């Protein structure tokens, strides 16, 4: 535990006319069980109170603290320094709008994404407060929760080749969200409804299959499976639809 860590941090405050993008280095003694949450807060409190970064739950639950750590997007709060070399480079997540230093605006993007994919149950049924709840198989509930565990941290988009090239790409987070609703028997949307949202280059057909998303997802969501499943499902729908369109012509 006698390492001196060198933390290279991207600095830029767009609100300060004198600020220009640059890297700044901080030096800090490593301590037991040290995480990047501890490192960055110590730097702010002891060395540089202007340093901007985002933490919230600091327990790997809320997705607030994603950043690029030695070249790889991950949640900073659960990243232990003992798993890193003594030279640590921290960059803000690409793809999202920079707020300052390591802080990026994931909230705006995810709110728009949720609106675009209509991330809610679509049903004609009315809620009846006097009635027993509609039954659901527990296995189905567990499968939905498996996909519902996404924390909207943005790591998958930061690691996505397509997202780097087209900013309107929905990315694995949104496609996984769609997969979650496809699974849910309460959602009455049909294949054609989902196809309208993701059956295009902004959606599932924009995915190049590089699968950086799967590699970096801090919640280990089965993104590869979901992307494959949706691609196949939407591809078959497109082909069927193409044929039926021809017939009617």
């Amino acid at each position, binding site marked *: 535990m006698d390492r001196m860590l060198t933390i290279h941090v991207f600095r830029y*405050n*767009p*609100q*300060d006319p004198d600020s220009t993008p640059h890297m700044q280095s901080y030096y800090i003694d490593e301590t*037991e*069980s040290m*995480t990047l949450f501890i490192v960055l807060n110590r730097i*702010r409190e002891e060395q*540089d*109170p*202007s*340093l*901007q970064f*985002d*933490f*919230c*739950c*600091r*327990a*790997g*639950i*809320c*997705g*607030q603290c994603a950043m690029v750590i030695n070249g790889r997007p991950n949640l900073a709060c*659960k990243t*232990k320094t003992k798993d890193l070399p003594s030279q640590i480079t921290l960059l803000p997540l690409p793809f999202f709008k920079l*707020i*300052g230093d390591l*802080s990026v*605006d994931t*909230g705006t993007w*995810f*709110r728009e994404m*949720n609106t675009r994919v*209509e*991330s*809610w*149950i679509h*049903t004609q*049924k009315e*809620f009846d*407060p006097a*009635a*027993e*709840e*509609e*039954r*659901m*198989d*527990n296995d189905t*509930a*567990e499968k939905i*929760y498996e996909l*519902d*565990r996404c*924390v*909207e941290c943005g790591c998958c988009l930061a690691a996505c080749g397509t997202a780097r090239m087209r900013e309107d790409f929905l990315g694995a987070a949104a496609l996984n969200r769609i997969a979650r609703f496809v699974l*849910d028997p*309460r*959602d009455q949307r049909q294949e054609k409804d989902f196809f309208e949202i993701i059956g295009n280059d902004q959606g599932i057909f924009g995915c190049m299959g590089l699968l950086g998303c799967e590699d970096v997802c801090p919640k280990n969501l089965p993104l590869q499976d979901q992307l494959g499943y949706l691609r196949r499902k939407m591809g078959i729908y497109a082909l069927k639809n193409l044929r039926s369109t021809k017939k009617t012509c």
Partner: protein
Amino acid sequence: MVETIYTDLLCLGAGLAGERVAIEAAGAGFDVICLSIVHSKRSHSSAAQGGMQAALGNSVMGEGDSPDIHFQDTVKGSDWGCDQEVARIFVDTAPIVMRELAYWGVPWNRVVGGKGSYYKGGQKFEKVEDAAKEGLITSRNFGGTAKWRTCYTSDGTGHAVLYTMDNRATQMGVKVHDRIEAIAMIHDGETCQGVVARCLRTGKLRVYLAKATLVATGGYGRIYKNTTNAVICEGGGQSIALDTGLVPLGNMEAIQFHPTGIVPTDILVTEGCRGDGGTLLDKNEDRFMPQYEPEKAELASRDVVSRRMIEHIRKGFGVKNSYGDDNLWLDIRHLGEAHIRTKLREVDEICQNFLGIDPLHQLIPVRPTHHYSMGGVRTNKDGAAYGLKGLFAAGEAACWDLHGFNRLGGNSLAETVVAGKIIGGKVVEYLKGASVTFNTAIVDGFIKKEQARISALIHGSGKENVFELRTMMQDALMAGVGIFRNEKDLEKAVRTIQEVQERAKNIGLKSNGLGANPELGLALKLPGMVRLAQCVAYGALQRRESRGCHAREDYPARNDRDWLTRTLATWDEGADLPTLNYEAATPTFELPPGERGYGGGKIISADESEA
């Protein structure tokens, strides 16, 4: 020129309580804006693991459950500190709200019919779930309850419900302005009219004017050094309400310590671990809770389990750790791989990520740590705050008061959505009859005051370091206002916090304060946090009895004769202590004060004459 935004309902906070109220108002056709200091899906509701109590009685171990039994558990849990009218409304409404959440999309775990097993106190038992209940919302066991009543989605209940709620809010047209922090409440002495807020993207000030304002900013755990709470839980809403000098905060001394924070980070592992059959072990790896609590053992209420753990550590049974204190062990190894990796997967991840251990094979080091604030903005049963018209509060930010001096696990997450629905309905009634006149001179006065504070911090000659002052406040509460309290330590805490308050008038920034500067953000908040800390410390000093989580070594009995009351703290401008008043804990007694059935301790009954 400061941007001004008008709306019908302004919710401070976009966690479960704030969004549930917002949805109700949006559903009635009102314009609603929620302010949130983070992306709404990161609100601290998302970190709640275990579940929500509601007497659905679908699982076999919950058979025969009813709102009446839930009511009794809640009142006993509160050590008779709660408002019984509120508890009654809550328990009656909770089952409906769980079903509504299912309708909105929450993937609740469901009953699986047939034979199964469960663990209690380390022993394996058989159970047979009723096949006729297959597919209904199931429940798990939690502390201080007579039945298995806690509805859950794995151990990510808060996350699953918040995601459903936030999406529902989007569907209903609720606008969320994230990275916006309210820093002052605008009022004319009678009616709350909105807030002055600071944008956490640009640092610019903004005014929100509203017919009704809701405080739903969660707890204020970060006034303590060690807490399970997220770093955003700094009591922003309570603090600006207190600053009006008109709105009282209720029972601020009622602070819950959770038995199982992990060492050293104080990250929570859910009560569901013990509910699902996990046990607490000491340095000899002996199970010790049954010797203190023969009936409830690990599943007594949180205040009791936390106290027993400290008692056991003080007797020398703690495990010395390398961080300079003692911990105990949480053992869930016997629950097995299938259970841990599905029903306790968040716990599993936390253990792997933050402790580097596998809970299937290793013991989890735990200690009681700060977790929850029963106190908050005092409201009536409709959620309307005392002191100002047009101001409401819900969830942990409020003192509604469902929890009294100890809340049961699973009751607070349920409170967010149940209170949200009920108070949402009352807000709608209020909005239907409300028209409000905004006086620009008053609004400008509030803006100027905040601009002056910011300017003084950036350009003034203050020398005090904001981080050091925060640490001083946090350490004072840790040392003096913990699980066990006494006059000497409390007095010391009060004095230290007074000193911090005085020094906080001289904060000077080391950085330039431009944009979303975090040092300025904290400097604006700290004086309010210090006042909250003082309400906690001073309220605890004045309450000369032990009730629920408030355990006075010098006044060990629960005193129903003199202290069956709720503390109401207000703060006069320029004062160095809060003004404390008291009101009856409950307007009616459906369940008269009696024994809780766990925790021991003496009771001075209301009928006893003064000694």
